[in-house]
């Protein structure tokens, strides 16, 4: 219901949004009664200050790499099909993502909680993403984690160089005035 409302006025302050209908679409597409608890968390890092956090879970990244687009149910179904065909196993626990979601009860395709006996044959999210997504970063590589604010340990490296430049300029000025 809230989709794109934040985007309209808060492009940066609220960097993530969820497509509210997607959990229902996944249930419908997979013919499963329920999703793991907190169904938004299947794709999004949860967050307390926006409705859903960054879409950066292993499963979410695999979906993106296979063509998922926001507010586009067709792309959602296409990505689910691609993951099922490739037996993508985003969390590497030996159980393919779609099998985890179809299980009763469903298990989380982002955590190594496979309880159905791993097949061991599933492609990892990274492999599937690389193949289907044309090497897009969404499906492979190390997980970035959510966007975090507050510089804390971050120091602007340019400032050190700037201070040196200013000191040099000052010295030069003094020499010229002499």
């Amino acid at each position: 219901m809230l989709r794109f409302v934040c985007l309209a006025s808060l492009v940066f302050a609220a960097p993530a949004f969820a497509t509210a209908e997607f959990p229902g679409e996944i249930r419908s597409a997979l013919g499963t009664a329920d999703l793991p608890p907190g169904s938004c968390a299947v794709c999004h890092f949860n967050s307390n200050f926006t409705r859903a956090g960054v879409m950066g879970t292993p499963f979410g990244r695999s979906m993106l790499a296979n063509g998922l687009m926001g507010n586009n149910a067709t792309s959602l179904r296409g990505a689910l099909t691609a993951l099922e065909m490739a037996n993508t196993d985003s969390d590497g626990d030996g159980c393919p993502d779609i099998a985890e979601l179809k299980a009763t009860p469903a298990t989380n395709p982002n955590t190594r909680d496979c309880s159905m006996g791993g097949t061991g044959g599933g492609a990892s999210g990274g492999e599937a993403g690389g193949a289907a997504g044309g090497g897009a970063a969404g499906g492979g590589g190390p997980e970035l984690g959510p966007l975090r604010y507050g510089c804390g340990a971050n120091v602007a490296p340019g400032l050190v160089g700037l201070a040196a430049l200013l000191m040099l300029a000052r010295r030069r000025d003094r020499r010229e005035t002499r």
Partner: protein
Amino acid sequence: MRNIALSLSLAVGLVSAPALAFPWMVKHDYQSCAVCHVDPSGAGQLTPYGRAQSDVLLQWKLKKPSPEEAQEPSPATRFLWFLDLPEFLNLSGNFRGGALIPIGSQVRPLFMAADLYGTVKVDRFVFHATTGLGLRNVGPAAILPQCGGETPCNAQWVAREFWAGATFADEAVMVRAGRMFIPFGLRNNEHTMWVRQATRTDTNLDQQVGISASFNGEKLRGEVMGLLGNYQLGPDAYRERGYSAFAEYSLASKVFVGVSSLITTARADPLFQLPQVRHAHGMTFRWSPTEPLAILAEANFLAWQQPGRIDRLGFAALVQGDYELMQGLHLIASLEGQHTGQGERGPSFGGWVSAAWYVLPHVELRFDTIIRRITRQAPDPASTGVTLLAQLHFFL
């Protein structure tokens, strides 16, 4: 429900507010912002001259002052209204609070800004820093504590600007490095307007670390900045790097036309974590046909490119008229539009009707009525939200 959501999202954007910038000063034949602002391209802290001019030109006066009176600023333009500072030191502050009144929802008090500004000018060298407190959603400018992920962004210590620079050519040129406002478009103070949000160039939270060179000449002014990223967010993959620049030329007295351009690249966008190249290119226009009236306009072409995905194309535009009923009392009407290129069924449109009253030295009372019609992707219908905003602003 949609109206409430729209109003609330607007509220979130408004709970922190930036320093002021007045592009409508064109009506007083000010093209350059550098004489009144520490930042050579405008916004933020005022220079001592700017503080005096704020009294002479901005403050509400029941009757028009005589030319002699107009030249003599009130003693209340000093720091904290009464403190004299040494010439090399410029201290001031920006405090803003108010209330958001979404139609059909509860009134929300807003704590928008509580910032202190400090500038030291020694010879040709300028050192500038701001620090303050933010209560919510000031993450991109926050220092501590860290937030994001599972940690909400509540009360935080913020630092929006810290830079050092040197002036050349009789102060017409300034070279700076540090955390600065991004030079792009009209530097208007309504930071939630789409031209600022969609281009990520507002003076509230969109400062970046970079190196810039600015020029303020008789007919031409401009600034180009190399963007090194916002080091108050992380991981590094989310930081946008590239350039931003604007130039504005005086076609005639009180007529200015400008161009802006920005290209950034990030290894991951916050939403999809895919590499992204972001473009914003546009034009600005400022014109004062009669002394009380200023017309401002900005139109930007927007594009987002991500590997393996179709490019998104969009726009953000603004037309604003500022009419000064009497000195210190402004009526402002604004029309805005945007398209985010995400498959929505046409552009979204908004209208602002505002009144700004500079009732006392360094005190502003402002009311805004904001109407926005947001267009969404099919099958969702468009929604319209109306929000009233009241603000009280002290700039020390």
